[in-house]
């Protein structure tokens, strides 16, 4: 059990990287506290798996430090770090039975028979594998195999952390939720730091207390699912989390307002001042579709727009309107009023975000 800390960590697969693009992991600092359930979320190719492999010790980072409980482990092997890792595709030892698979890590540690037996049965029960213990691992279904490979991680009681590298990808959708709940339960039962790598925001937010969102080799935001939704720290977070993603409009700042195409939208004065001080030319206004208000009648400060498209997604609808050539999406619930033709748009001030150079401008 351990707190995992990354200090000015960076990694490149090239021998002499020069441009930032050469780095799979750009310099970062990060902390995962002991006992937490974390998710590492991001699109494919953002460096999630690389980061995971660095933590587990399968990869040695080009620079920076990996600290477990404050102790540097950079040059310790995965075995010495005492972490468990579960891979995207189930890795089982085909020729062994389920029992032997689960016992394998313990036998390698030289535990005595009774301990092994007790522990294996405990884990098998937790994973609902008890009836399969004597079967050949090769004959199991894909999700049972994945359970076995998770079990091999859990079976060592003193592991520092369990790292899960998209373990649910190959699992049948109908079993996914079951396995995810099992994971969650195991986490509570054994109180181990767990880091789940995934590209599925739903999986991440149902599993984790805190989600670290990665983009282009960097963690752009680390927070609770709610924080990621309500306060996206980076335009990518806004775009990646939520469906559909956040609306972004390129704006310029004048007179306490964000202006685009001759229209102006008032923003919070404190944020405005901060943003102006940054003096960036890349300024964006962002608002989640969930927070966009639609009105039938003209209102003070509301924008006059035309509905271009309505998508019915069952329990809610996505309305696309056009504001001076800019499409903006709004989400309305099932029994809300459905606009057609002309509609008036307003943005509630607390949900209106300003982004300078893609990063959130935030008054503390």
């Amino acid at each position: 059990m351990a707190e995992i800390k990354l200090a000015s960590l960076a990694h490149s697969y090239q021998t002499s990287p020069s441009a930032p693009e050469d780095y799979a992991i750009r310099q970062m600092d990060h902390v995962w506290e002991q006992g937490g359930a974390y998710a590492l979320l991001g699109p494919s190719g953002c460096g999630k798996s690389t980061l995971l492999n660095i933590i587990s010790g399968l990869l040695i980072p080009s620079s920076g430090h990996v600290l477990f409980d404050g102790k540097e482990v950079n040059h310790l092997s995965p075995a010495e770090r005492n972490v468990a890792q579960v891979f995207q595709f189930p890795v089982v030892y085909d020729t062994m039975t389920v029992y032997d698979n689960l016992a394998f890590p313990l036998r390698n540690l030289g535990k005595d028979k009774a301990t092994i037996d007790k522990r294996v049965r405990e884990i098998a029960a937790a994973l609902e594998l008890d009836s399969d213990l004597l079967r050949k691992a090769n004959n199991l279904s894909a999700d049972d195999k994945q359970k076995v490979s998770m079990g091999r991680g859990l079976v060592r009681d003193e592991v520092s952390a369990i790292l899960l590298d998209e373990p649910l990808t190959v699992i049948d959708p109908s079993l996914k939720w079951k396995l995810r709940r099992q994971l969650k339960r195991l986490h509570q039962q054994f109180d181990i730091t767990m880091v789940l790598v995934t590209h599925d925001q739903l999986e991440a937010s149902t599993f984790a207390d805190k989600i670290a969102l990665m983009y282009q080799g960097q963690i752009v935001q680390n927070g609770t699912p709610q924080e990621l939704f309500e306060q996206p720290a980076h335009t990518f977070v806004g775009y990646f989390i939520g469906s559909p993603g956040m609306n972004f409009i390129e704006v310029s700042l004048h007179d306490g307002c964000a202006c685009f195409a001759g229209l102006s939208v008032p923003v919070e004065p404190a944020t405005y001042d901060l943003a102006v001080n940054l003096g960036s030319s890349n300024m964006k206004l962002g608002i989640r579709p969930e927070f966009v208000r639609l009105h039938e009648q003209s209102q003070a400060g509301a924008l006059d727009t035309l509905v271009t498209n309505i998508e019915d997604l069952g329990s809610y609808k996505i309305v696309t309107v056009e504001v001076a050539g800019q499409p903006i999406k709004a989400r309305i619930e099932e029994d809300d009023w459905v606009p057609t033709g002309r509609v008036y748009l307003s943005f509630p001030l607390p949900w209106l975000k300003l982004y300078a150079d893609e990063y959130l401008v935030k008054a503390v």
Partner: protein
Amino acid sequence: MIVKIKNQKALWLILPVFVLVAFSSLIPLMTIVNYSIQDIFDVNNAYYVGTDWFREVLADPRLRDSLVRQFGFSASVLLIEIPLGIGVALMMPKSGRLASLCLVVLAVPLLIPWNVVGTIWQIYGRADIGLMGSALTSMGFDYNYASDPVDAWLTVLVMDVWHWTSLVALLCFSGLRAIPAAYYQAAQIDRASGWSVFRYIQLPKLKNVLVIAILLRFMDSFMIYAEPFVLTGGGPGNSTTFLSQTLTKMAIGQFDLGPAAAFSLIYFLIILAVSYVFFTTITQMDKER
């Protein structure tokens, strides 16, 4: 696995292959059966003898000896080449220029005409002009493959190892390369020892290619002819006279067509039974997958 469709017309696609192979296989086979029950020198001098040749051949110690020698040789070949081939494959780099180079060097012995293989070792092993022969002699070994039966047998064995281990190694190499990296990573995390990685990850994944390797090596070693023929001519004595050699000597050397044919059939039946067992094993394994 592809789900196959029932279609009898597919037989037409097989026809050319069938005709070509049947021409060279069925007609000679029938001829041998005909020969085997006659005392025959040429077609006009043939006398029906019934099953006499079979009785004679089955009782002939010469043939029994060469059969025993053959099994001994094939077993030795498998016992040496399979582990050695696996070892070489394990030691090879997995990718890059060096791997390509290894592959090419490994493949070289396989592409040398079999009689030239014999020639190479004939030259290499001679004490007067050969590197290996003279090296062994100067180290104090009394080595002469032309006069000492044990030396001859060992030389043929080493030659076969030299010639064919590459095949096993290349098969295993391709098998090893097909193992996903995650298996090794998982093993590392489970603190598996090097031996455990081999025993529980690599060996199980090599099962399929190993069956092919054993099958090919058994069959080819069972029909070994040209290499010992050039190297030792089957001698000294009969120490390196294997089945094919005995047979060729009988049929062409002594023109004992009848007994040679009977012997061929027995030889063929042995091959047929062994191949069938292997073939069934392979298809059975495919089915399990």
